[in-house]
């Protein structure tokens, strides 16, 4: 039986870029949600946004980050993931998952300007 290469969550998944079905970047894996299953611990979802990454900071920096960036976070169920390589590919569009909202908002505003 072929031995599977070990998958290191911290190295191979955490902090990697998310791209949606159209290959549009839509955030990074800021945190990982784990759950207990009959086979042991398993990844349940990927967490994106300041509410997820601020928790990884030291206490004082965490308070500052939350004050500036808020606590918003998006939960992407692991079923959404179709491929994990350099980037993590998702099966839906960013908008359907609630990712990249600010980019689209700024983009709509910029679209009013010439050559945009």
């Amino acid at each position, binding site marked *: 039986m072929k031995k599977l290469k070990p998958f290191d969550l911290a190295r191979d998944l955490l902090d*990697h870029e998310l791209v949606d079905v159209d290959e549009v970047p839509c*955030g*990074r894996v800021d945190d990982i949600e784990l759950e207990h299953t009959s086979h042991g611990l398993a990844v349940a979802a990927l967490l994106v946004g300041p509410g997820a990454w601020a928790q*990884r900071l030291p206490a004082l920096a965490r308070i500052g980050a939350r004050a500036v960036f808020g606590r918003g976070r998006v939960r992407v169920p692991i079923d959404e993931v179709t491929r994990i390589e350099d980037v993590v590919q998702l099966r839906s569009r960013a908008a359907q998952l609630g990712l990249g909202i600010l980019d689209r908002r700024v983009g709509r505003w910029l679209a009013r300007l010439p050559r945009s």
Partner: protein
Amino acid sequence: MKFAEIFLGILTAMGGFVEIGELTFTLNAGQQFAWSLLWVVPLGTIGIMVYCEMAGRIAAVRSRPVFALVRERAGFDSALLTLIASLAVNLLTCAAEIGGVALLLHLVLGSPYRLLILATFAMLLLVVWFVSFKWIERIFGLGGLLLIVFLVAAVYLGPDWSKVAQGLLPDANARETVLDFFYAVALLSSIMLPYETYFYASGGIEDEWKPSDVGLNRLVVFVGFALGGLLAASLVGVGTEYFGPRQIEPQSPGAAALGAAHAFGETGLLLALGGMFFAFGGAAIETSLSSAYNLAQFAGWPWGKHLPRRHAGRFTLSWIATFALATLVALSGVNPVTIVEYSIVFSVVILPFTYFPVLAVASDRNIMGDHANGWLANALGWFYLVLITAAGIAALPLLVLTQGGRG
């Protein structure tokens, strides 16, 4: 590979090599220490070659920009700190470049300095908005080649070539002062400014480099940067031969142009001012785009000058904000040369955090396959990582001890 593409790449790399910090420190190093610190120029030039080649190779083989690697490899806390520090250093450098362009325009046009800062801001904004990435590189890179007038002036001034040769190696018998060390560290940092690596690798991805472009990357870096290093060395020469004997400190871009004017009169002056205009303007654009690249790559936003602005909203807003904030810093009235002195010293502190992830990925055969570092790239990579770490640790104490290089 197309010959014209290589040729243009080399020329733009050479023309874009020097910016206001490097110009200031090379001329001042020559003025204060004659040829004795010349060895720092090839040392720094080889260092920036080694790391830009690696970063460019990673961009060509895996389409991975520098800050994506920093985030994935350095750990979140250090990556965030590196991001914040790089944004601060880019902002200060951009402010110094904008101030430098405004000073040059003030010399030529005589209009009020602050008004010209605003005009420079508007010009840069319009250029980045309307001109494509490739043409920005070409216009400012090729325009920067006018600085070759300093290379010709350095030869014209008739240096003692035996002293030039002696300067290529550190003098083991010299009694170095703290000021010597400060200038050596600052000169090294001014040549190895971190934004150059960020911009170079992101630019490779903007230009859609593929694994077949690894050779192009190598040629552009090795030949283009070597010629750029020669230009930097010639500025040490002008500092030594023109400013040294006259005891003039070239503390402004206008004063720097005097070296070329002395050799070639009005033509020399205009060529030097023109070259500095394109070199500083190009560096201002590169630092503002670098900030936007770093932020977008760190956070996973869509990025790239090639994307329609409406599809890269936060990236676009980031480079506009960098220009705007840098303009405010320049408007505060602080001398651009003072700003650049600080930005250069702080730059060397963040270099190890930028370079380590690049070295880790470039040497990883699982990621880079046959394009992974060979023994020479690894040996040079580690040598420079240790060197810049030591320089980074020494930089701030040296800045304090020498009161910002004033002795």
